[in-house]
């Protein structure tokens, strides 16, 4: 099976100049953890995910101070959350994104997802336009479908 057959074609996306608060609201509404960021020309410019938002809300040094436990929420969190309405998606999004193409084999996509630690990959055509998006769950479903065909279950 190739990526083109399993990827979701109708891609929900956010624009780089949207406010983070609005984009977050969209994530909540459609119950997805991340969306591609596509500009006015249909080009992929970044990925906007829950991870980027959490990273922004918590202080940057939490990863460098070793082990500790937050017993309460620091005051800054509320302030930072309020700032989200002033921030644009382009300021928070991840800019180096792993992508794939329609002809890529299923296992290759799985390999890329594992080694690059990506949960969803935008599917691009040769000009860089976004054709669809493939997620980890899509890959797993396809693999299990193929496996059950082969074993005749």
């Amino acid at each position, binding site marked *: 099976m190739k990526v083109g057959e399993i990827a979701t074609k109708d891609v929900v996306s956010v624009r780089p100049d949207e406010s983070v608060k609005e984009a977050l609201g969209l994530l909540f509404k459609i119950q997805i953890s991340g969306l591609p960021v596509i500009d006015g020309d249909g080009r992929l410019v970044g990925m906007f995910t829950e991870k980027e938002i959490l990273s922004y809300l918590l*202080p*940057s*040094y939490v990863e*460098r*101070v*070793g*082990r*500790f*436990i*937050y*017993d*309460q929420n*620091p*005051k*800054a969190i509320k*302030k930072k959350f309020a700032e989200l309405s002033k921030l644009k998606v382009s300021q928070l999004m991840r800019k180096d994104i792993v992508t794939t193409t329609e002809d890529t084999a299923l296992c290759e996509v799985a390999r890329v997802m594992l080694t690059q630690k990506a949960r969803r990959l935008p599917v691009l055509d040769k000009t860089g336009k976004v054709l669809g998006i493939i997620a980890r769950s899509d890959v797993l479903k396809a693999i299990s479908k193929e496996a059950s065909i082969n074993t005749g279950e």
Partner: protein
Amino acid sequence: MISVAVSLGILARHIGLNPHQSLAISIFSASILGTLFFWDFRLGFAFIGTTVLLLTRTIDLDNLIKFSSLEVILFLVGMMVLVGLLKDTGFFAWIVSLILQIKNLTANRFLILISLISALLACAIDEVTSIIFIVAAILEICDYFEVSPTPFLIISVLATNIGSSGTALGNPIGILIAAKSGLSFEDFIIKAFPLMLGCLVIMIIIVKFWYRRSLLELDRKIRDFGANDMLINLISIPPEKELKISLAIFGATLFFISIHHRLELLWNLEPNTILLSMPLLSSGCVMIWKWRRARDYIEKDVEWWTLLFFMLLFAQAGTLKYTGTTDVLAKKIVGLAGNSLPILIGIVLWVSAIGSSILDNVVLVAAFIPVIQSFQALNLNLQPLWWALLFGGCFGGNITIVGSTANIVALGILEKEKNIHITFFRWFWVGLLVGTVTTCIVWLVLVFSPFYK
């Protein structure tokens, strides 16, 4: 950059140094310029530069390895593993929570507390690790009381740089000087630590005046906000048992390091054997106790990128001595100083202070050590010169915004978290004041006090 290095080499040739010496100077200055302008590429340049030295027979393999001071590098590796363990068991979170939990906080107490803790932590642990925790605590407290964290951050960085001169552990330059000068850890405790404390007090007095408005505002906000219960309950630490064990290991290491000289005399060991091998012993035990995490400590907590650069830097500096370059330089400098020790102390002190305000202080000290060692051949009392190098190298880091890695790390966090950008000059005025006053005090003490001869 290459042209500057080459022209320095040609200049050296002109003033009477032989080809090997000129080449050694060229390569070494290329390294220094590399750290100044091409920070990210510095290791690549160091690798290539060292190869050039080998291929041109400026230095041979045996001496290259000898000068790279592997014993100092292994010491640093051992200490970094220990710091990794302390991070894991929540030692630093404990320090932060201690700061957050002071009752009856006043601006004065806050100022003195962060200065003291910054300085003392910097004595025992490398400045980059210690500054991250202090900055975390300061940001949380200033957030809570809704004051600008900038003054307190700057104060803690100033205190960290001053504190790092207090022991041989505080800064890589301390252990380097200890290894090459024959001064023992005890010498540091008796002679460097008190002087460091004195300068710390002076710094506190200076910043109390410089930032008096910020301190008043903090007091006002503390009165307005009342008790800081929320801060007190903000963070807690993981299981205490592990923390106690790791503190015990760290404490024992520090203890044996501090009496290393006496033990070496007692057991007839080569000088500095225990100093340099204690961290290996402790970190070895740690890696057996926490064998699942051992690989992580070595791969993530040990800064190999920096250590490899140090190794090659030391080797290149050693080449300067080996080729006799520094002997020539040393003679010329002594001539300049008119054979007067106080002037010589002044030269070493101020050149290293100004130098370390621009360059990385390890680079500077690595360059100076062979020069001071060459002074030995000229029958001079070296001890005050080593102290001048130590204090100049540490205090100079306070002068500019790029003077020390602690400055860069702290301001990087400030910028990322609060979007506050500190300009070069905002730092420079207070940094210059604190830096020059403390350096002057050291100069006076080293010249006039018989204790340091």
